[in-house]
C-alpha cells in the first residue's frame, strides 16, 4: 500500500527533513512513526498525502509514485486518504456536522448519502448528539474526535494521523487511540505519527532520528 524507496526531502537552504528512507506498509497494518520533535515524522506523512514532494527517491501509494503525480491528479489521491492533521484544521464557522460533511461534498457524494455518512461518522466517534455544536463549543478531545470523523467519513482504506493525541490528557488520549484501533480492526491501514508509542502497543513501530529511519 505504501512504499518509501530511498526517499529524501531536503528543504532549502540544505536542511534534510528526511534522508534515504525506505520501508513498506502492507494493507491493513497499524504502524506508528516515532521520534523526537523535528525528526521528520510530519514530513513523512506530508509526502504520502502529496502535501510535499520528495527531493530524492520515490514514495508510492497504492502503486502510484506520488512524487511524479500531475498537479491535477493530486486531489483524487487525497480523496482516498483520511488525514488527521496535527493542528486539526477544523472550520470554526461551521458546525460539527458541516465539518464532517465537507470531504463528501468535495468528492461529489449525493446530498442524501453524504448526510447519512456524516451522521454515521459522528456516531462512530461519539459526537452525533453534538452535531450542531460549533467546534469552539467542543472540548479538546471532542475536537480531536471531530477531526477523526472528518478523516474517516469518506471510508478511506488508509488513515494518516499526525500527533493525534498531543495536548490531550491521558484519559482522552487513550479514548482517541481506541478509536484508531477500532478502525484498524475493521481493515483500515493506519499510520500514526506519535511521540507516545505506549498508546498503540500492537502497532509496528518506525522510529526516525534526524530524518533517518532507525
Amino acid at each position, binding site marked *: 500500500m505504501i512504499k518509501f524507496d530511498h526517499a529524501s526531502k531536503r528543504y532549502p537552504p540544505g536542511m534534510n527533513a528526511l534522508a534515504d528512507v525506505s520501508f513498506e506498509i502492507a494493507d491493513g497494518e497499524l504502524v506508528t512513526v516515532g521520534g523526537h520533535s523535528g525528526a521528520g515524522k510530519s514530513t513523512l506523512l506530508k509526502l504520502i498525502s502529496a*502535501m510535499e514532494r520528495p527531493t530524492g527517491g520515490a514514495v508510492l501509494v497504492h502503486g502510484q509514485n506520488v512524487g511524479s503525480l500531475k498537479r491535477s491528479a493530486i486531489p483524487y489521491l487525497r480523496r482516498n486518504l483520511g488525514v488527521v492533521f496535527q493542528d486539526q484544521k477544523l472550520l470554526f464557522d461551521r458546525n460539527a456536522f458541516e465539518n464532517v460533511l*465537507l470531504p463528501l461534498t468535495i468528492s461529489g457524494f449525493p446530498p442524501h448519502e453524504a448526510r447519512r455518512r456524516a451522521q454515521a461518522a459522528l456516531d462512530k466517534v461519539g459526537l452525533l448528539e453534538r452535531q450542531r455544536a460549533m467546534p469552539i463549543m467542543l472540548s479538546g478531545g471532542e475536537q480531536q474526535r471531530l477531526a477523526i470523523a472528518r478523516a474517516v467519513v469518506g471510508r478511506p482504506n488508509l488513515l494518516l494521523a499526525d500527533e493525534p493525541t498531543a495536548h490531550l490528557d491521558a484519559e482522552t488520549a487513550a479514548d482517541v487511540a481506541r478509536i484508531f484501533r477500532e478502525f484498524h480492526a475493521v481493515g483500515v491501514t493506519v499510520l500514526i505519527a506519535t511521540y507516545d508509542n505506549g498508546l498503540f502497543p500492537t502497532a509496528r513501530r518506525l522510529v526516525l532520528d534526524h530524518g533517518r529511519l532507525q
Partner: protein
Amino acid sequence: MSVWLSQHGDAFRTALRRLAASPVNTLLSLLAIGVALALPAGGQMLVANVMQLARNSAPTPQISMFLELDADKRAGQELQARLKEHPGVKVFKLIPRDETLTRMKSREGLADVIEALPRNPFPDAITVLPEDDRPEAMEKLAAEFRKWPKVAQVQLDSDWARRLAALLKIGRTGVVLLALLLGVGLVAITFNTIRLQVMTRRAEIELSRLLGATDAFIRRPFHYFGILLGLAGGIVAWGIVAAATWWLSAPITDLARLYSLDFALRPLSAIDSALLLIAAAGLGWLGASISLRQHLADD
C-alpha cells in the same frame, strides 16, 4: 450529471450565503456597481429616445434637382422617364418654373421684387424621395443626378439628418466609452471583493485542497459570487434608470407639448435591459476570474 448539478447548486448557495454574511459590505458594493452601470444604461436610454423623437418629428429627407434655365419641356420629360426607371427613387415630383414663380409671388414681401424682374428667374425643379434615406445613400444618389444632362444643381435636403446622425454617433460613442470605463470599474470592485473573500477564507481553501478539492471546486463559489454581485448590481442600475425615467417622464412630456411634439420618455427596452443584466453578470464573472487567477494561483 446530478452530482455536477448538485455541486453547482452547493456553490451557488455558498455564494449566496457569503453575500448575505456581510450585508453592509454587499449593499455598498451593489450601490457602487449600480450607480456605475446606471450611467451608461441611462445614456443608452436617452440616445434611443432621441432617435425615436427624431424619427417621429423630422420631415422626410428628399433630394431637390434644379434644371438648367434653358432646359425645355422635353428635357424635363426625359429626366422624369429616367427617374421612373431608377431603382433608388421612391417618388418624384416635377415643379414647373411657372408654379414656383406663382408661389413666390404669393409670399409677402416678395411679390414686388419678383414683378420687377425682367423674366422668370426660377428653373424647373424635381423633388425626389429616395428608397434609402440614410445620409450616405442619399449622397450617392445626388452625386449620380449631378452627372445627368440639363441638371444645373442638385441639393440634398438631408443636412438635418446628417447633423442628427453625427450627434447621435457622438452620443452612442460616449455611451460606449462610459460603459467601457465603468465596466472596468465594476471589474475592479469585484476583483477587490473576491480578493478579500479569498483572504478571509484562506483556511477553508487550504483545508479543501488537503481534502481533495480540485481547483474548479474551490473557484466555483467565487465565480458564482462575482456573477451574483454583478447581476444584483445590474438590477440596481436598472432600478435607478427606471426610477429616473418615471421621474423625468412627466416634465419631458410637458416640454415636448410646448414644441407641439407628441413625445413620451420610454424606459429601457427589454433587449437593452437584458443586455445590461447579462453584461453586469459577465463583468462580475470576469472580475472574479482575474482575482482568482491572481490570488489562488500559487496556493
